[in-house]
């Protein structure tokens, strides 16, 4: 009886795939349906932004930050502007800080709605949750368009403030949205979280232990789902977050379901923050004047914010010229992908796909 020759199956979840969230490639070694090894290949969206930014002034670099994490452009802008302001010692007026907080939290709701929807898409619910969540995202993007003219790559924050003040129709529309959102979030929770099929798929799959999470510099909802309470808005407050009263949701064991829970609850907390910020919004200037080609003193600065994906940080080194000497992005999506292999080895192909979906990466930020 001849020996049956068996070899593991190497499947390429290639750059073109319906659910790799962008051009991301995984070379997966399978034993039947079980994952034995995962190798990540990235760089299909590498646009060398760090090198390009060294040739442009600090203000000219702001549109780059839109296009890194293109689904949450406001927070990308904000982190960069905070880093430049720290480097150059620029003060931001109070109205601008409140506006920054409002738009960051609106962007967080939009991003989490999309993330949860796409995660459900990966689980197999044919676009139904996405369509429901996109209704609120459309309203938020309308608010963005009315303020700065763009829906996706907003380019809204400037060094020293924001670029435009909010128009008159912003406040009534934003207040109406904030009144309506908690009911919608409760509706989504009721429809999605108790579903047995979703629980059977998402519980106990893609588990990330807490100590591996810390050693891998994982941040954001992925870190909070492992049970560690860490949020830059509470630990290292920027803008006016120290005046806002909100909670941070924390998960239990770091599986896919916990990440879903954390994102759902963060949307609700963002509504709380927006409501407080809209009430407390002071009048005043929305930007300080800075020179056209800002020349910060020689030095370096690292500023970080809590973006919807995790801790987004910018490390800027200045040599006194109008352009940065070194522009480095501490990208949350890239670092959240670090433990992907440990999270998925031993599980099936289906779990690999939804684990990748629940980490919520954005390839523009991974590859820069």
């Amino acid at each position, binding site marked *: 009886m001849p020996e049956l020759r068996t070899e593991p*199956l*190497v*499947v*390429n979840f290639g750059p073109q*795939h*319906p*659910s790799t969230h962008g051009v991301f490639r995984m070379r997966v070694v399978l034993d*039947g*349906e079980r994952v034995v090894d995962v190798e990540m290949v990235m760089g299909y969206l590498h646009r060398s932004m760090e090198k390009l930014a060294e040739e442009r002034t600090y203000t000219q670099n702001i549109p780059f930050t839109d296009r890194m994490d293109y689904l949450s452009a406001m927070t990308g802008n904000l982190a960069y502007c905070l880093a430049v302001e720290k480097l150059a010692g620029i003060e931001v007026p109070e109205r601008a800080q409140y506006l920054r907080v409002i738009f960051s939290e609106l962007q967080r709701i939009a991003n989490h709605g999309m993330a949860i929807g796409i995660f*459900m*898409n*990966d*689980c*197999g*619910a*044919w*676009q*139904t949750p996405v*369509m*429901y969540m996109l*209704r609120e995202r459309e309203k938020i993007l309308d608010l963005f368009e009315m303020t700065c003219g763009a829906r996706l790559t907003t380019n809204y924050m400037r060094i020293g403030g924001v670029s435009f003040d909010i128009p008159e129709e912003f406040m009534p529309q934003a207040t109406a949205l904030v009144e309506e959102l908690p009911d919608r979030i409760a509706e989504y*929770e009721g429809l999605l*979280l*108790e*579903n*047995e*099929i*979703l*629980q*059977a*798929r998402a*519980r106990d799959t893609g588990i990330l232990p*807490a*100590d591996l999470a*810390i050693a891998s510099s994982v941040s954001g909802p992925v870190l909070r789902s492992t*049970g*560690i*309470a*860490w*949020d830059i808005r*509470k*630990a290292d407050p920027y803008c006016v977050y120290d005046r806002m009263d909100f*909670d*941070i*949701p*924390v*998960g*239990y064991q770091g599986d896919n379901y*916990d990440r879903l*829970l*954390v994102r*759902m*609850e963060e949307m609700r907390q963002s509504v709380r923050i927006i409501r407080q910020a809209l009430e407390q919004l002071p009048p005043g200037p929305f930007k300080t004047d800075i020179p056209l080609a800002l020349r910060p003193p020689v030095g370096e600065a690292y500023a970080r914010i809590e973006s919807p994906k995790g801790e987004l940080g910018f490390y800027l080194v200045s040599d006194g010229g109008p352009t940065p000497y070194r522009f480095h992005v501490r990208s949350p999506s890239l670092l959240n992908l670090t433990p992907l292999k440990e999270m998925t080895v031993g599980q*099936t*192909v*289906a*779990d690999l*796909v939804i684990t990748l979906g629940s980490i919520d990466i954005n390839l523009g930020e991974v590859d820069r």
Partner: protein
Amino acid sequence: MTLPGPLAPWYDFRDLSNAVERLLSWLNDIGPDWLVYVVSALIGGTAIFLFVAATAVANIWVERRVVARIQVRRGPNRAGPWGLLQPIADMTKLMQKEALLPRAGDPVVFLLAPILAFGPALLVWGVFPFGEGMTFVDLNVGVLYIIAVTSVTTIVLFMAGWSSNNKYSLLGAMRVIAMLLSYEIPLVLALLGVVLFAGTMSLSGIVAWQQDMRIWLFLVQPLAFAIYFICATAEINRTPTDIAEAESEIVAGYHTEYSGIQFGLFYAVELVNAMAVASIAATLFFGGWWLFGLDRWIPGWIIFIGKIYFIYFLLIWLRGTLPRLRIDQLMAFAWKFLLPLALVNLMLGALEVLLWLEYDLSAGLVLPLFSVVNLSLTVLLIVGWMRLMAFRFQQLPSRARLVHDIPVVAPGAPAGGAA
């Protein structure tokens, strides 16, 4: 073939066989014997083929509009009024695309697979009673024929996946075999429960039994209907059990490499299979063309098609709402949950029939009693078996824990724990 009767005029379209039988009796008078057989086969076959083709085309529109409504959007409304010409647009697009052939695949098997997939989808329609006496072939082993024909699909889908020479298709094909084989067993056992009560495997005989007893078999065998519905959803690869062609994981499973009209055939097969499953359920469980005597005014075949669309709507509803299960969960569900329930259902049904025949009770007394008993037992068994086999998830919290302040250890105190 039945001999012509002198009763109904040929234009009585409540029973389409009137017209056909007038024609056949005329042919019988004027031609040789074999001509009648040939002409009746041709008429029936063409009618069924046209019906299947028409429903495949119409269902493209129905499915897309209904799924869109579930998803809070409109669906196709550009091609023609209310998007009614959308199926024609889709078919034209698929027909004019290049039908690719993978170079390293097996060309003969690759080209045969879509055609063979359409075979069972078409063949199964031959035994359905569209009305009283309107069955193409009234086999007296109709149920067995249906089961046998639909199980050909398994090997055909594996042919499609294997010959594509593509790892995604291979994964899809392997999943198809595992899943379709596992779900056939509870399906057969559920259908056996129906046969037990009706006493015959002939589909028109089952409808006649329901007509005589004035009760739907759905009420007498609710557990069988539930098991049949779930197994049939798995057999036709629809969500929540469409793991074999899971778009978000293995692109398109066994039909990844197909394009053009070959893909169009697979897509049409999926729709026609859904209709076939719906019509099996309508015939066996909901009385087919009989609706408590309403078929004196509304033709029986219209009632039948209405019931089919009602059950098809249930299938679309499931598709639009539920996420999909993983393959090992599906296997566990079939073998550990559905199979024991189907066996219990069979035993209970046999016991009931035995009691009925042994003590020679009247049907009017016994059948409502059985309905009530069976309905309550269905609920009890499903809930109880679920509790016994249930996952522990129901005890875990389903909302995140809220923390207001970050716990920071003071500089002097020792740090403890993992975080």
